[in-house]
């Protein structure tokens, strides 16, 4: 019988069935698997338990790597990879590879024409068959073919843990109280010099590397709920305190246990208090926004104005929360989620620009989007039911600015995440008072503008129908 690589679909399907049946018969609670990493492909294969040893289908291991031909003759199983041939015999502990004996450690298993070799024989078989270096981590069941490992560094920058990888990664993320876990199922992430890295940070204590069952887990221990964001084409993962927690020292909310398998940590809506206003300083981290002058970035001006606005609102006895209170990189979806989880009366995102004068107050320009499906709202148009409240809020804020002799315009803009907010939502773009952009950096000007906006927000509490 000859099976050539392009025609092996049925072979692989039936091999998988054999493995499944075998695993079911063994009653294994967790499916064992082995991961193979190469320059051609990264893949995971099921592991079969026989006579107390771990086995893997040998054809399945090498088939994705190149041209493979298989001949089966009774109890003899012959596999050819490119020009290298290897003979196996059912029940034999020895294989013949290019005329030399290779000890397998236990018997070769042949079931329904499918050949299985012990996992611990791969380190002897693969280098000779493939003609290159192969590293087999038997305990973790991870096979590295060639120099494919991904290395990483982890260090605290500001208050965030920044992990830089040598190649892009896409781990799944899960959370549990006090921990955020990155699970790399298909990436050849290699261990750091020590399995546990410790940090002198109040929020993030350590990152622990472990590898098992063909996967890698990096568990980050934190004293606060954490979330992960990706940048640099997946080469950088930034772990930081969830935005809700960044202001939690101003309140005494208790955190409910976070759910598992969440890409972004939930913001504990059941235990969190309701804020009247959510203030979102636009941009942050590597996303600097506009360059407003020499070394003056929009992200810094927006944060300064947001902090002034928070202080002004607190003086007016308005409960308020900042989406970010540091130089944090957040996506617009994360900002919208943070705001929506708090069910505020009004959401205000702050922007800054050197174009024009005064302040421009925006409401969402609604795109034509999909329709709501039962309880599921269309994300692009989630703001629609709140648009009139938003317009009323924008008008009130613009009026208060004009009362303070600040030029104010009320406009619409396709500005995310306004259209994703489930509350009255306005965007504020602050321009300098004169032709010089320097005014934007002036704390006095920032506070003056923040005070006028705070007056407008405070007025909303007494307007029927607005920002309810």
């Amino acid at each position, binding site marked *: 019988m000859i099976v050539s690589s392009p025609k092996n679909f049925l072979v692989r399907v039936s091999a998988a069935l054999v493995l499944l049946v075998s695993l079911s018969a063994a009653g294994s609670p967790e499916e064992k698997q082995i991961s193979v990493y190469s320059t051609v492909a990264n893949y995971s294969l099921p592991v079969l338990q026989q006579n107390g040893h771990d086995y893997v289908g040998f054809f399945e291991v090498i088939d994705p790597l190149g041209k493979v031909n298989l001949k089966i003759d009774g109890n003899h199983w012959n596999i050819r990879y490119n020009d290298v041939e290897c003979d196996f015999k059912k029940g034999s502990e020895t294989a013949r590879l290019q005329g030399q004996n290779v000890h397998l450690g236990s018997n070769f298993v042949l079931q329904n024409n499918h050949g299985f070799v012990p996992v611990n024989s791969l380190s002897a078989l693969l280098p000779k068959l493939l003609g290159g270096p192969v590293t087999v981590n038997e305990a973790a069941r991870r096979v590295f073919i060639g120099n494919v490992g991904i290395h990483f560094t982890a260090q605290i920058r500001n208050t965030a843990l920044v992990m830089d990888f040598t190649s892009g990664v896409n781990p799944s993320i899960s959370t549990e109280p006090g921990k955020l876990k990155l699970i790399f199922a298909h990436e050849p992430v290699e261990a750091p010099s020590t399995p546990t890295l410790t940090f002198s940070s109040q929020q993030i204590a350590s990152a622990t590397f472990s590898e098992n069952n063909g996967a890698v887990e990096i568990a980050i221990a934190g004293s606060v709920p954490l979330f992960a964001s990706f940048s640099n084409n997946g080469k950088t993962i930034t772990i930081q305190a969830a935005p809700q927690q960044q202001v939690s020292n101003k309140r005494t909310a208790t955190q409910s246990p976070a759910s598992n398998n969440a890409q972004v940590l939930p913001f504990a809506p059941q235990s969190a208090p309701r804020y009247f206003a959510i203030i979102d300083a636009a941009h942050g981290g590597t996303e600097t926004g506009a360059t407003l002058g020499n070394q003056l970035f929009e992200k810094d001006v927006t944060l300064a104005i947001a902090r002034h606005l928070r202080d002004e609102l607190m003086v007016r006895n308005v409960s308020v929360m900042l989406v970010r209170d540091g130089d944090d990189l957040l996506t617009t979806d994360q900002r919208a989620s943070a705001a929506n989880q708090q069910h505020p009366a009004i959401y205000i995102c702050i922007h800054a620009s050197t174009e*024009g004068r005064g302040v421009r107050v925006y409401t969402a320009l609604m795109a*034509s989007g999909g329709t709501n499906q039962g309880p599921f709202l269309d994300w692009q148009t989630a703001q629609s039911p709140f648009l009139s409240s938003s317009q009323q809020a924008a008008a009130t804020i613009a009026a208060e600015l004009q009362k303070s002799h600040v030029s104010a315009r009320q406009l619409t803009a396709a*500005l995310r995440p306004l259209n994703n907010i489930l509350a009255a939502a306005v965007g504020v773009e602050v321009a300098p008072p004169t032709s010089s952009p320097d005014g934007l950096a002036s704390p006095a000007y920032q506070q003056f503008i923040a005070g006028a906006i705070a007056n407008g927000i405070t007025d909303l509490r007494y307007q029927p129908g607005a920002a309810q």
Partner: protein
Amino acid sequence: MNSRQLIIAVVLLFVASLGMGFYAWHMRKNAKANASATYAASVTPPASGPTEQATLFVADDSAGSLRTQQATISLPEDRQERAEELIRALLNTYLEKNSPHIIAPGSDVREVFLVDPGVAVIDMNSVFADNHRSGILVEDLTVASLVETLAQNLPGIQRVKILVNGKERDTLAGHADLSIFYDVSSINQMMSQMAASQ
């Protein structure tokens, strides 16, 4: 020729050489100015053929709104090519000296696709987006001028999508959302608000 005539001739020759030198300097200066203006004007040669009147919706930064501007441009018969020439004419306005809304030299439209009844997809080059000024108003003005110029000159267009280098992009320069289809009716409302709040 006596000595007096000789002196007059030498003086005349000297004055003439000075004049010619000044003229040559002047011509060289003009040539330099024309060369830079040519670079800034367009990266794609205009279409040839009969010209038509078109209405461009030009962003004006100083007013913070759009204004209309009549332009005489060569418009091909093909509706898709007409759309591209309209966008190119608008961009050329922004690339001119004393532009009311500066965009980066080299900005250009790659293609305009007219799909489905009423949908236009404008594919801009990466120079246009990568070097666009960042800000809510300045980005919205650009988007609105592109959408309105297309919609008002090609009847039937109701929705416009903007791509960059053939791909969808989150924002133009950090603010204006490019992940959505812009409704022409929404842009009309935006224009009205801009005009009303000047």
